[in-house]
């Protein structure tokens, strides 16, 4: 027989209450963690965009500075060549052939210097670009690693909370089960005692009635006297007397 149906349903209500509380707390916690994760991710994206923007601007500024420097170098070269021409023009002791030869050589030097400067500028730009690209890759790697680490930490934290809630729920369930079992056992003992008492009553009543009809007066009087003496002795009176 299932005695649980005879018990009050407080235990079941209490159990449902604990389940609802535990799962509500878990849900709220998970939502908070998701919100924090999203907030962090958005913040990182913004920071990355800002960093890229700053780098691009720095790159543009550097390019401008480089162009300006190259133009200034070319201008200086040109001015130096003009000065050289003027100096040569003022020299009267040079022949026409020697002067042409000298002009060609100056032009070759100018071209060579110009190409060198251009190559140098492009090489510098390329180096700068490579450095920027390398830094960008490193930053992206760091951001990726940070994101992974955050994910791992969040996952482990959620797992720990889930385990704690599950453990707490299981322990509470065990506690409730043991309490129910104890209540059922107490109820059984009480019912057994009640039933025994009822059976004793019935037997005693039947015996009393039967004996009342069967027993003769002298036997009954003897029973009363013996019982009275026994009762008085139980209460501490000394009534042991063989003559009685």
């Amino acid at each position, binding site marked *: 027989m299932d005695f649980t149906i005879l018990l009050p349903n407080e235990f079941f209500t209490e159990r449902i209450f604990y389940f609802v509380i535990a799962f509500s707390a878990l849900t709220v916690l998970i939502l908070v963690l998701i919100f924090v994760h999203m907030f962090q991710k958005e913040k990182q994206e913004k920071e990355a965009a800002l960093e890229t923007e700053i780098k691009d601007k720095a790159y543009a500024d550097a390019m401008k500075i480089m162009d300006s420097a190259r133009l200034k170098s070319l201008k200086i070269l040109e001015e130096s060549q003009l000065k050289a021409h003027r100096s040569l023009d003022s020299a009267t002791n040079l022949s026409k052939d020697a002067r042409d030869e000298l002009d060609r050589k100056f032009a070759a030097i100018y071209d060579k210097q110009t190409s060198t400067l251009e190559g140098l500028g492009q090489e510098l730009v390329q180096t700068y670009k490579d450095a920027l690209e390398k830094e960008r890759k490193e930053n992206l790697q760091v951001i990726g690693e940070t994101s992974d680490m955050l994910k791992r930490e969040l996952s482990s934290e959620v797992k720990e909370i889930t385990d704690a809630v599950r453990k707490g729920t299981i322990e509470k369930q065990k506690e409730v089960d043991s309490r129910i079992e104890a209540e059922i056992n107490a109820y059984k003992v009480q019912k057994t005692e009640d*039933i025994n008492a009822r059976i004793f009553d019935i037997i*005693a009543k039947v015996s009393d009635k039967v*004996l009342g009809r069967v027993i003769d007066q002298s036997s009954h009087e003897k029973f009363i*006297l013996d019982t009275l003496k026994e009762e*008085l002795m139980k209460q501490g009176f000394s009534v042991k*007397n063989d003559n*009685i």
Partner: protein
Amino acid sequence: MNYLTPEIQAAVLSSLLTVPRAAELSFLTDEIKAATYIQGADIKGLSEKVSPYSKELGGLISSSDPGTLRALVEEVAELIEHSDRLKVEMSYIPSKDFVSGLYDIFKVLGYKNFLLEFTTVPEAGTGARFYHNGNFIDISMFDLIKEKMKDFNFNL
């Protein structure tokens, strides 16, 4: 009391045992007292009627003169009036042996100068109830059977 010594008082009440018998003796002693005022009354015959109730009292009455006799019966009346009462309820009128045995039990317990007062109560069934100065003892076969069964446990 001048004529009834404590020993005689105890002996008189022990032979009377119950209140109805004490009442009968009181009627008889009243008749004896009245007879002392009547000339030629059969005081001796009346005195002999006392002996079945109490031999000690019968002997005293038969050997007393009318003046002493009046004082003696007054002491008897006072003794009965002030005697202690122990009430017993039973479902039937008990036998003399039972009454005597019951009286002896209480005498051994230390009760003095008392009389038993029986009342027939059908509800008492197979038991008996005793009352004295607020004390109460209930002897019941029903309770006895229940007590004997206390150690027994039904396996359900």
